């Protein structure tokens, strides 16, 4: 929502009520009712971020950034937004794309699917967004992609990892940039079972990413002869995990596999450490986003977890990338970029490259540039080459396993990288079976 729009309502006239001099039960109830309404809207305002002034000659290319700025994934939403803006800045420094300056407009998707739909609809129909980028919460990403498909607007899901995003909820206009729950489970389950045992409990965030990631883990555990003795669903925004941790102690599993993200995993990690449970059973977190672990003490970063990128990978370009982040965003609380920022950056950069190569913003032409696109390991600063699967639109990329680094070589050197898996070894085979992309003909043409 632009600032202009929010200012359109006239101020409400001040009224005097009987409560002014005679407090009554009715006025109290009125206050409480209004309080309920106020509490229900307790979210941050939408924000507009015009990076560049409108160019005189050509209409600027508007990219809609659909990132969470509030709710469970606010921290990650902020980082992926910075990553996308960095890529946009680099292109604008070179003169934009197709001779057009690039503007970004950001609206807070509030970690809420309904808001995601509303934001996408508004960006496409009222803000002339040519492309939409951003998503951490899989429910939000799915909601945005449904709206995007309706109009034919290309949408990049940068950081949400539910296997369904490139499976049953795939769309012709949607491209999924992060590794998904199945990729990470493929990379970790077999080894974890060998090292730690066959009796597993799943701690699952109760929404689409958690469900589908846990489902992938369950399938693999059972396929390798292990047993899921229980699965505890954790509602989003849970802050007190005591009852879950007591239950875990009663069950006594050998391995706890969590698919918990955002602020929930931060609170969970702290409470596990308070009980010392990290030493009583093996812990695996399917994917550990950098903003969710940055700032935690060393003892809280326990267990083994997945990621797609780390700032101290010994690969060409990584150091320069970190330097560029620190130069563009000096004084950041998160001093070095992580996987979430990285995904926001590489996704946006690849989209703009494809627009340039296609020579148009027409959706089908750009989609065809993206489908099957090969990206070198060097270009993406990962161990293996990556490809965008034309059948699922998911970026098949290197999957890393990591743990806490007890011998850091530098400040913020939190992760010890354990393994790197070739994309072809961790493929989500189910996705290709369940993904039914709309045909080109069924996808509305879209060009801004």
């Amino acid at each position: 929502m632009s600032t202009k729009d929010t200012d359109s309502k006239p101020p409400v006239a001040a009224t005097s009520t009987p409560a002014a001099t005679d407090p009554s039960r009715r006025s109290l109830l009125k206050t409480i009712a209004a309080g309920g309404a106020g509490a229900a809207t307790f979210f941050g305002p939408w924000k507009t971020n015009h990076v560049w002034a409108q160019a005189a000659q050509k209409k600027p290319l508007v990219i809609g950034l659909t990132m969470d700025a509030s709710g469970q994934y606010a921290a990650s939403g902020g980082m992926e937004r910075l990553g996308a803006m960095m890529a946009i800045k680099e292109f604008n420094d070179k003169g934009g794309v197709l001779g057009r300056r690039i503007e970004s407009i950001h609206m807070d998707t509030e970690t809420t699917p309904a808001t995601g739909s509303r934001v996408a609809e508004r960006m496409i129909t009222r803000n002339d967004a040519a492309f939409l980028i951003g998503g951490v919460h899989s429910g939000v990403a799915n909601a945005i992609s449904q709206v995007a498909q309706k109009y034919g607007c290309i949408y990049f899901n940068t950081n949400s990892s539910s296997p369904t995003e490139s499976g049953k909820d795939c769309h012709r206009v949607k491209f999924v940039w992060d590794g998904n729950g199945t990729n990470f489970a493929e990379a970790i389950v077999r080894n974890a079972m060998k090292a730690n045992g066959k009796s597993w409990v799943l701690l699952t965030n109760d929404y689409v990413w958690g469900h589908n990631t846990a489902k992938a883990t369950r399938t693999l555990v059972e396929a390798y002869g292990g047993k899921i003795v229980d699965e505890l669903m954790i509602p989003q925004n849970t802050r007190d995990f005591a009852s879950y941790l007591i239950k875990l102690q009663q069950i006594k599993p050998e391995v706890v596999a969590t698919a918990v993200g955002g602020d929930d995993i931060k609170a969970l990690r702290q409470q596990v450490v308070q009980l010392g449970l990290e030493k009583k059973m093996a812990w695996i977190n399917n994917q550990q986003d950098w903003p969710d672990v940055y700032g935690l003490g060393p003892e809280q970063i326990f267990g083994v977890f997945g990621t797609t990128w780390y700032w101290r990978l010994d690969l060409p370009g990584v150091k320069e990338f970190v330097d560029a982040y620190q130069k563009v965003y000096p004084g950041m609380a998160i001093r070095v970029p992580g996987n979430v920022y990285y995904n926001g950056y590489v996704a946006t950069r690849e989209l703009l490259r494809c627009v340039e190569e296609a020579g148009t913003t027409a959706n089908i032409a750009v989609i065809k540039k993206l489908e099957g696109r090969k990206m070198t390991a060097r270009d993406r600063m990962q161990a293996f080459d990556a490809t965008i699967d034309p059948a699922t639109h998911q970026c098949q990329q290197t999957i890393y396993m990591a743990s806490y680094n007890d011998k850091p070589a530098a400040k913020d050197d939190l992760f010890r990288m354990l393994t790197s898996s070739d994309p072809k070894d961790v493929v989500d085979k189910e996705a290709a079976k369940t993904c039914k992309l709309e045909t080109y003909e069924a996808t509305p043409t879209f060009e801004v």
Partner: protein
Amino acid sequence: MTLLPHLVNGVALGLLFALIALGFMLVVSLMETINLAHGSFFALGMYIALLVIAPTGEFAGAWSESWRALPIVWRYGIALLIAPIVVGLVGMVLEVALRRTYGRDPLYGLLLTFGAALVLEEGIRAVWGSTEKQLPLPDAIAGAFVIGDLIYARYRLFACAFAALAIGALWLFLEKTPYGSIIKAGAHDSEMVRALGINLARLRLFVFALGVALAGLAGVVMAPIWGMRPHVGVDAVVPAFLIIVLGGVGSFWGAVVAALMVGLVVGLTGAYASEWSLLSMYLLFIAVVTFRARGFFGKKSVLDV
């Protein structure tokens, strides 16, 4: 035996919820103002405590080294005292700003406190940054202990005991001191209290400061359990609101009983129907308010038959 630990955990959780809700209840009762900034004061308490216990970054001057030489038990104890006082002082500023809204449409007070919540949250973000922070704890209350074959966090036990003490102390203050009597009378009929010569403006200032100071105190106590981030206050304000309505607006013990019920319901569903654990408190709320709109101990209206 499998149920008992969950019952104990539910009561513990309830005590913590009660601590979060009491300050909210005080402000609503006396001032008929829904303080949407309650959660932000809760968060501010956490960060002030961090500043007192472990000053870092821009706050760490030459003085901080000698300060840090103090045993952490002392620093923690001082934080428990200082943080609510600082939060109370900030609350006083908000109360002064709120005065123009008294007696007007409740929306004015709501909007002002909502705005204050945003300002406080952004202020915390600007000063301390948005990354997760840790509140260091004295060894005596860190770590875990074992009962039977279960491990419990020592800090949780401390937090619950502290919450119970704070609830008891507040009750004694309200019931056994002349100031408490004035506050209760003010909640019942503020105009009559004014007619008796009590300075109502000062009373409201004091009660608001006390209410938000309690929020700050709850923040300090909850920081090691919930973690510290600028928007953590949202997690506190919603249960606080629910608990005071469930208990009956203005009822001290109503709020405590409601908090214990919410704690038990959330704790037990967490163990036996985990996907319902957060929703359960809202279901409880709907169930109670459907049949008893004024909550457990709310006063009967003349409209009730």
